[in-house]
């Protein structure tokens, strides 16, 4: 019997440290949540162009949640979060309460505040998007303002979509969002761009190398405030001249050399 699940989604496998940190933070505020995700816990979204397949994946995941006995499903991915409430919940019903990680931590901020002991001197602008029903646009700024030393700057710009993923396949849309976000950073005097979701982090970490700014996820920043060590390997790989060498032959062999060459390295070496 599982008390709570931390449903991190599928594309978060690029960011193992965020899953570890998120799980640790939940535990620190009193929620013992078992991480679950990857292809076997898919919301069906990647296969939405074939709804019959997407439905099968979503049903399998919802059934496993309902059968787990979990009273809470803590989400990360906004697509999963929305699907949980619309297609999945509407057709399978829900046995568990659900909230995004940021909401879950914000609701328990009384337990979080005493743990935020490390000053973090950063002036941050958050990569906000217009749309999402997850409540994170309210919770994330609130959480960051709890960290001693952090200044959260306000700017009215909001990128379209609910995260960068959707913009990446629309010609010009992601480039405009990056350009507008950099202009907002300059206008506010921010030194750090804070991403909310994984796809935004994936798309924006390259700005650290090309524009001399810091790019952190909100969980990283919270971890710094709590004094928790972490390593953002995806960012290091993405900004390396030679990600293959940085990952190392031994890890590549263990992960499957053919798959890494075909699926991982092209993503890490694409234009920033």
């Amino acid at each position: 019997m599982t008390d709570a699940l931390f449903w991190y989604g599928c594309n978060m496998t690029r960011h193992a440290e965020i899953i570890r940190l998120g799980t640790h933070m939940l535990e620190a505020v009193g929620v013992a949540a078992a991480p679950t995700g990857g292809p076997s816990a898919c919301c069906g979204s990647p296969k939405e162009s074939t709804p019959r397949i997407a439905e099968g994946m979503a049903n399998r995941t919802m059934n496993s949640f309902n059968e787990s006995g979990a009273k809470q499903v803590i989400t990360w991915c906004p697509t999963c979060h929305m699907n949980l409430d619309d297609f999945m919940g509407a057709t399978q019903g829900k046995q568990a309460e659900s909230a995004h990680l940021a909401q879950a931590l914000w609701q328990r901020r009384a337990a979080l505040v005493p743990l935020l002991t490390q000053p973090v001197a950063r002036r941050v602008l958050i990569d906000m998007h217009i749309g999402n029903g997850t409540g994170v646009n309210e919770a994330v700024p609130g959480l960051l303002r709890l960290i001693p030393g952090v200044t959260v700057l306000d700017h009215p710009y909001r990128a379209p979509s609910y995260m960068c993923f959707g913009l990446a396949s629309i010609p010009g849309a992601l480039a405009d969002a990056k350009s507008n976000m950099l202009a907002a950073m300059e206008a506010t005097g921010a030194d750090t761009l804070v991403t909310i979701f994984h796809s935004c982090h994936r798309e924006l970490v390259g700005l650290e190398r090309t524009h001399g700014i810091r790019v952190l996820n909100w969980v990283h920043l919270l971890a710094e405030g709590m004094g928790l060590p972490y390593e953002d390997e995806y960012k290091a790989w993405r900004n390396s001249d030679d990600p293959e060498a940085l990952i190392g032959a031994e890890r590549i062999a263990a992960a499957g050399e053919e798959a890494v060459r075909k699926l991982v390295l092209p993503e890490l070496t694409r234009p920033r």
Partner: protein
Amino acid sequence: MGPGERMVEPRYSNWTALRAVESARMLAACTACGACFEACPMIAYVPAAQGASAADTVRGVLAMLQGGQGDEAARGWVAACTRSAVCVPACPEAVDPMLLLRLAKFTAQENGTIPPRDAKDAMSRVKAFARLGFSETEQKEWL
């Protein structure tokens, strides 16, 4: 709440029923006023929609929802929707245009009106990153 009890009961028996009921509701409610089109931040990225009639483009989306081809502006808009959700409060008839475009996209991809998203490697890539970043125990327990 006891074992097996649901805190939210299902409203539809499956996705086909959801699509059928919601499509009928939206087709009945939508007046093609075009407020959703005018509010959408993605129109700027749809070349065929530049200068297009908002009402005609919405009618094109309604046609796609029913299995038709729509016009070029409607096809471009459906393909470019990234669920910003600005259209939802803009709609005076509570149609939920974001769901309208999503369901129109389902149908359009099923009948070949717009090309499906290429996601054939998506899950293999997810697994490859997991093997790189997760420990063996994490792979066993988290996936």
